[in-house]
Every structure is written in C-alpha cells, then in structure tokens.
C-alpha cells in the first residue's frame, strides 16, 4: 500500500494556514445532507461531535458508556499543555513543537506536531469560555505548572482533575447540540465493525450492551475517537473498559496500524499489591514538580523504613543521572531508571518493585498546607489505596502501562488508509512519536476534535454527492452484521473451563515481560510463540456464561480480550522488527555507552504501518519515511 501523508508543501509555520486555504469546503446548505458517525465520546469524540454538529452536519455519536462524561479522559489528572507563554518564561509555539518532537525521540510526523502546537493556544481559550474552572492566581489570571520534558511552565490544570473538567466542558458542548437535535447519541452501543462500500467507510455495526441487539448504521464518513489500547497489558492505569475493538476491527478491514509497540509506561503509579488486582492507579506526574524520587544507595537498606535511612545513604537517582531535568526527566527515561535501580536490588516495599517519591523537602519549604492545596486529592487517593499517609512518609511508586502512542495510521487530514475513516485522539498514532510528554494527550485529543477534523473532513465530504451514501440494506452491511452475529454465537457456544479474566491476565504477563519497559529479540520471539497458543486456548476453553439477549458483561469482555489476543501479537511483531532503541522502545541489544537508547536513524526513521493480510498471514509492513525539515535529528539529551 502506498501511504500518502498529504503534508502540505511550504514552510513548516505556514503549512496549516495554507492547507486551510486550499482544502475543499462543503457548502453550508449541503452540510445537513451529510451524515457523520463519531464513535467515542471522550475528549476527542465529544469535541468532534459537538463541533461538527455546530457546522451543520448530521451527527450520530456512538459510545459504549451510558454517558459521554464517563469516557476514560475523565481520569486524566495533571494538566494540559499550551504554548500561551502566560508565564513569560520563553515559551512559544516553536518550543512546544520542539519539545514534543524531541520528547518523542524523533519518531513523530513533524508537520502534525507543529500544527498541534499552533492550535494548542486556542484550546485553552475554548475551554475557559465553556466554564472550565482552571486554577488561577490571586490576580485572576490562569495559573501554570511544569511537566516532564519541558523547562517552561506551560501546563494548565484544574486541581488534580483536569481531564474531568475538560471532558465535562466538551460533554456539555455535546449535550447542547443533543438538546438542539443536532447530534443523536447512541449510548450503550459497542461498535463491532466498520462497513466498507467500494473501499470507503460508510457505516458501522453496533451491539447494544443492554439488549444485545445488533444494528446497522450508515453514514457518509466515520470518525473513530475510541481511545488507547493499553489494557492489552491487563494491568494499567486505564479504566477497565478501555479496549482496542473499534480500531482493531478497522485494522482488519484495511486501516493500517502504526507503531503498535509504542506504549508508554508511566513512572509514577501505585505499585501492584496482589494477583487479584484489576487496575493500577496513577499518581500524577505533576507530583514530580515538588516530590523527590529516591532509593537507598545500599541494597541492605531497602527493607528499612525510609525514615531510618540517612540523607547521605539516599540516592536521588534522577537528579544524579539527569541533573538539568532532574525529577522532571521524560517518562520513558524515568521509568527505565526506576526499573534499573529495582533490578539492582535497591527497590523498596514488600515486592522490591517500588521507589520513593518524597515530599518532606517540599513540606519543609512550602508548608503542609501549600502541598495539600496543590496535591491534596492525590495524597487522598494514595491513602485510600495503600492506607499510608504521604504527608508523614514518602509515597512508594512504580512504573505502569499508561498510554499508547501507536494507533491507526492517519494522514495530515487525520484520515486512515481507508477513505472516509478518520481517527482522532489516542486512537491514532500521529503526534507523540516513540514517547508522549505529560499533559500532551489532552491537548491532542481536543486539538483533533475542536480544531482539525471540523475542517479536514470537508476535504473528503466535498468530493461526495450529497445524499449518495449507501443505504444500510446494502449487501456489505448484511455481510458485516452476519460476521458480528457469528462471532457472538461462537463465543457463547464454547462453554470452556476458564473465565475471560484468566486469558487476559496471562496475555498481560507475556506482554509485560517481553514487550514492556525493556525488550529483546529472544523474548519477543518467545512471545510470538506464546500469544498464538494462548489465543487458540482461548477459543477452545473460554467460558462465557449467559446469552446475548440482555446485559452480559462476560460477553463484552470476551470480545475485547479476543481482540487484545490478536493485537498483542502485532505489537510484538512490530517491536521485533524495529531493531533499534528509541523513546519507550528500549531494545536491550541497542544501548549506548551511557545506558541510554541507541537510536538508528539510518534504518528506522520511519513510521511502521502494518497492513492486515488475512487470517493466519503475516501482516505487510508499510513504511512512511520521517523527514524533518525544520529540526535536526539529534540524540536526545536530558543530562
């Protein structure tokens, strides 16, 4: 397949403006004749559905939640970046662009990232106008803080609930359009397949989670804003329901899957406590503004209580290894450093898989109240889960799966390799390369939904005759519906011995061991043996009780895990194929003298876009070369 990124010509700074001037427009009177299905109601989906409806398009918004306000975006804590330079500390569009490209270890598409930095400033304006209660200074202006990988203060926040507040802003915009009859919500509907007619995306097949009813929905274009797939690891900071089904089915219909192995492991999460565990809880990166990370210098001290370890016996390893960024080193680097000190036997807590995040200096410097004001709710969460008081003794943290930079391949218009199928937010691959900087996912989701798709979708729709969308009784719809029904029947008829969770846990363990913070060819090859075997076992021994006539959570789960069992294999294949280290992708065969990633630009400066080739066949690797016009590819240095 030939991948055309459709990046406009001209100087980097001018590309987006020029593109807006060049792309085709849909005549306002015709807009209501086009119907768009938006799957997803998180930041990306809600903002897109609301903005498209405002323009006059007929929009249906499909979510598996009861309400768009419950999308996983709600859980984001720390903040959202924007190049406002309100702090007058030297920030600019160029600096945000540069930090993001560098943070992603030169594996993101330059023009998309520049556009992201450009539109970031408008996002904050939009959200404030919607009544998002961002933190403010006494003078009434907006407050900022710093996140990893940046030396300026450009992160806007609403206590520790920034994602919730941004989502409620986008959700209320969506509810306004619902009230006005411009958007039809389809809640509790899980999209099970994309329907292609003459190679173009023209609808979806959904299953109602409460009634089990399978239905067809036709449209002129389909937008997927279905979030990330980190739950493939079973344990992660995602909501339990987040899954890959929407993008995986699209992949199997011909949308290329880009860089599937790029997953972000977040350095500051509450460590695992037992095998019953269902999810891991993030402690926001913002804590690293004031918390200091350390482990004992000596192995023997790792079982001691932290208060009994003298200052000179503590190793503030991030400050030592990365003096200029210190505790704010990017996530991939901080996570690996934690793994390294734990591998050396200096990890703390019962499992030895933990490091301290210590606020005693900050409490001395600022007072307990100031610390409470900044991070109170995070300290509360920590207390609830661990039963420990982080005002008195340091938090124990460990890295956990948190975000997926990989996703469906999209061009500059956010269109996948299936014409008419657009992909927004975490579900696409476009902006974060091999590592995402903190507070940039919220920015990207809202940039895509508010400020990119409303314009770029017109470029596609303008080529279609109004009213030309195929009806939902077209044979392609019937075929897709039959496949969905067939799969439901199959899952219900196995009646094996093991619950779905059994397979999910085992898959997660394989991926964590071999496709997690460190990877090597031997491990990946092993995983590529184990995953297909596990998949076979699933399809012969899973037990899905009940039927499909009403709410059946085991069945929902079985569908999702079945897709994870396929995706996991593709991730390992991608990780094996990328024989270099870059960002989150740390191949142990490629480590430089200082223990950092040894990137190989000569051979791997490309986006790996995998194309489905059919059941049991090896997928085809397509490469989109990464060409940088405005920045030079250099070695990432945070020392």
């Amino acid at each position, binding site marked *: 397949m030939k991948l055309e990124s459709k990046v406009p010509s001209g100087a980097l700074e001018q590309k987006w403006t020029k593109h807006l001037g060049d792309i085709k427009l849909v005549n306002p009177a015709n807009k209501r004749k086009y119907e768009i299905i938006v799957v997803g109601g998180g930041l990306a989906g809600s903002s897109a559905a609301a903005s498209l409806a405002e323009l006059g398009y007929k929009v249906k918004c499909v979510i598996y939640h*009861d309400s768009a306000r*419950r999308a996983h975006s*709600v859980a984001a804590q720390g903040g959202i970046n924007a190049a406002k330079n309100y702090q007058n500390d030297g920030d600019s569009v160029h600096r945000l662009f540069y930090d993001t490209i560098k943070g992603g270890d030169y594996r993101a598409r330059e023009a998309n990232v520049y556009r992201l930095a450009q539109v970031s400033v408008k996002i904050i304006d939009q959200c404030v106008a919607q*009544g998002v209660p961002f933190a403010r200074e006494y003078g009434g202006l*907006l407050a900022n803080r710093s996140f990893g990988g940046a030396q300026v203060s450009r992160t806007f926040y609403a*206590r520790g609930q920034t994602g919730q507040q941004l989502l409620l802003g986008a959700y209320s915009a969506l*509810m306004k359009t619902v009230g006005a009859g411009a958007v039809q919500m389809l809640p509790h509907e899980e999209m099970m397949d994309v329907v292609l007619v003459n190679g173009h995306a023209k609808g979806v097949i959904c299953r109602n989670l409460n009634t089990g009813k399978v239905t067809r929905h036709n449209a002129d274009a389909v937008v997927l804003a279905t979030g990330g797939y980190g739950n493939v690891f079973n344990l992660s900071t995602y909501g339990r329901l987040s899954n890959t089904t929407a993008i995986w089915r699209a992949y199997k219909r011909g949308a290329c899957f880009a860089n599937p192995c790029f997953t972000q492991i977040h350095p500051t999460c509450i460590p695992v*406590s037992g095998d*019953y565990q269902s999810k891991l809880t993030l402690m926001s990166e913002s804590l690293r503004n004031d918390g200091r990370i350390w482990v004992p210098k000596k192995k023997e001290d790792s079982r001691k209580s932290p208060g009994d370890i003298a200052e000179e016996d503590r190793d503030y390893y991030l400050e030592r290894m990365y003096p200029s960024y210190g505790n704010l080193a990017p996530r991939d680097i901080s996570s690996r450093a934690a793994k390294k000190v734990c591998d050396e036997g200096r990890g703390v807590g019962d499992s030895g898989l933990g490091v301290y995040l210590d606020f005693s200096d900050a409490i001395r410097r600022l007072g307990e109240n100031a610390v409470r004001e900044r991070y109170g709710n995070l300290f509360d969460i920590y207390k609830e889960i661990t039963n420990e008081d982080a005002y008195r003794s340091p938090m124990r943290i460990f890295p956990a799966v948190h975000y997926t930079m990989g996703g469906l391949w999209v061009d500059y218009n956010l269109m996948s390799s299936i014409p008419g199928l657009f992909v927004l937010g975490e579900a696409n691959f476009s902006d974060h390369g091999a590592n995402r900087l903190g507070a940039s996912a919220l920015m990207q989701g809202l940039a895509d939904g508010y400020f990119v798709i409303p314009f770029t979708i017109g470029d596609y729709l303008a080529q279609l005759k109004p009213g030309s969308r195929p009806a939902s009784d077209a044979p392609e719809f019937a075929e897709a519906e039959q496949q969905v029904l067939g799969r439901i029947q199959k899952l219900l008829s196995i009646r094996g011995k093991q619950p779905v969770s059994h397979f999910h846990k085992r898959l997660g363990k394989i991926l964590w061991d071999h496709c997690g913070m460190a990877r090597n060819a031997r491990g990946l090859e092993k995983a590529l043996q184990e995953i297909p075997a596990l998949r076979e076992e699933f399809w012969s021994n899973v037990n899905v009780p009940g039927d499909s006539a009403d709410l059946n959570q085991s069945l929902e789960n079985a569908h999702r895990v079945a897709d994870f069992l396929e995706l996991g294999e593709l991730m390992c294949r991608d990780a094996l194929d990328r024989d270099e280290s870059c960002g989150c992708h740390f191949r142990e065969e490629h480590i430089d003298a200082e223990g950092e990633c040894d990137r190989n630009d000569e051979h791997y400066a490309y986006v790996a876009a995998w194309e489905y080739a059919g059941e049991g066949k090896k997928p085809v690797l397509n490469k989109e070369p990464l060409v940088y016009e405005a920045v030079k590819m250099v070695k990432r240095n945070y020392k």
Partner: protein
Amino acid sequence: MKVTLKVWRQRNASSPGEFRTYQTPDLNPNMSFLEMLDVVNDSLTARGEEPIAFAHDCREGICGTCSLVINGKPHGPHRLVASCQTYMRSFHDGETIVVEPFRAKPFPIVKDLVTDRRAFDRIMAAGGFISVRTGAAPDANSLPVSKEAADRAMDAAACIGCGACVAACKNASAMLFVSAKVSQYSLLPQGQPERYRRVLGMVAKMDEEGFGNCTVTGACEAVCPKGISLDFIARLNREYSTALLRESIGRTAGSDGGA
C-alpha cells in the same frame, strides 16, 4: 478473610428481582470491593452460573460509573469515596454484606446492580452548558476570574454524576446534582448570559424526569463521594426564584452583569 454477600439479582427491568446469598472465596483485605466482586464472579463462572452484573470503569472514583448500595449506604461505609474506592479492610472477617443497586424511580434497573442513569444527561441537554461556538472564544486571560470564584466553581464542578445523591434521598431528588452544575456556571463570568435560562431549563427537565422535591434532609451531601455541599442547593434555590421572578416580569434570560 471471607464474607457472605447478599446480592440483589434481577434479570432485566421487567422481571422481578430477589436477594441471593453467596459465600466468597478467601479474600485479601487490600482488595477493593469491586475486585472482590471480580473474584466472586470468576468463581460463579467456574460453577456455570451467571456472574453478578455491576457498573464500573475507572475504579478510581472519578468516572461516576460505579453505583452500589453497600449495607444500605450508597457507595458504602466511608464518606467521600465511591464504591470503587471501598476496600475489604473496611469489613470484618465473616461479615454479611448486603449489596443493592441505586434505587430511584428515574433510574430503572438494567440488570442486577446496574441502573440506567441517563436522565442526568437529559437534564444536562436542557441547559447544562455555556453556549460557545468552537473557535469563537476570546483569549483565555482577557477576562480575569478571582481565585475565590474559580475555586468555588471547581468545588461544584467536581461532581462525578454518579447519582448517589438521588439514591440516598427519600424523595429521589436530583437537586444536589443540578445545583452543582448551576452553581459552577453562575459563579463564573462566562456563565452569566444564560444564567436564568439555564436554571429554568434544568429544573423543568428534572421535574419532568420524575425526580422528587428537596426537603433539605442532607442525606445527599452525606453520601456524595466528592463532598458537594448543600450550600449549592441554597444557591440553586436563589437562582431559581430570581429566574422565576424575572420571567414573571418579562426580563431576559441572562444576567445583566455581576455574578
């Protein structure tokens, strides 16, 4: 530890429900309540029985999906936490725990412990927003907002829309939920133009959906996982009476200025 569960089982909205009793397998006190249900469900599956349906997603108290009444209390024994943030160490070995769904007429039962709370969305669609077209907003710092107002608006905006307030109220009133949204916007300058139209629209919808009256017993505040304060209900009442008064004398739906 082990506990006995008395769980509400109901196949769907139209069939009758009943309590059923289950013995849990051995549990770790550090498990969350939902993880305990996961473990019970896996054992039910192994026995060929249908697992207990319950709503959940984030499992960290922010999405508002989980909605259990545990021993008669919406969200369980502790203040300021959601069901998903309740841990087994809060119960004792051998205890019998009663688990029910949020019960309220406007929240019909879907299955077992899962209810349909979409009435909240319909209330939101009737006015829970500030109308601002995408791309039409002025620079974010062009309108300073005092830190006090922003903080107070944030206190209200923290609502997670779980519906525990409704489940706790003998009248199934949704006043705490509606008051949080109305207060958030009325505290901010951006919310002024639609201030009175909003409160009239949301309250009318709330009544239409069958939520009851508020008799200020405070049961809602006591179970709210986010500590949304009853003061906001007082504010809502003020906003609502001013809006009615203005409507009766034919004034416009927004505020003339000043919050």
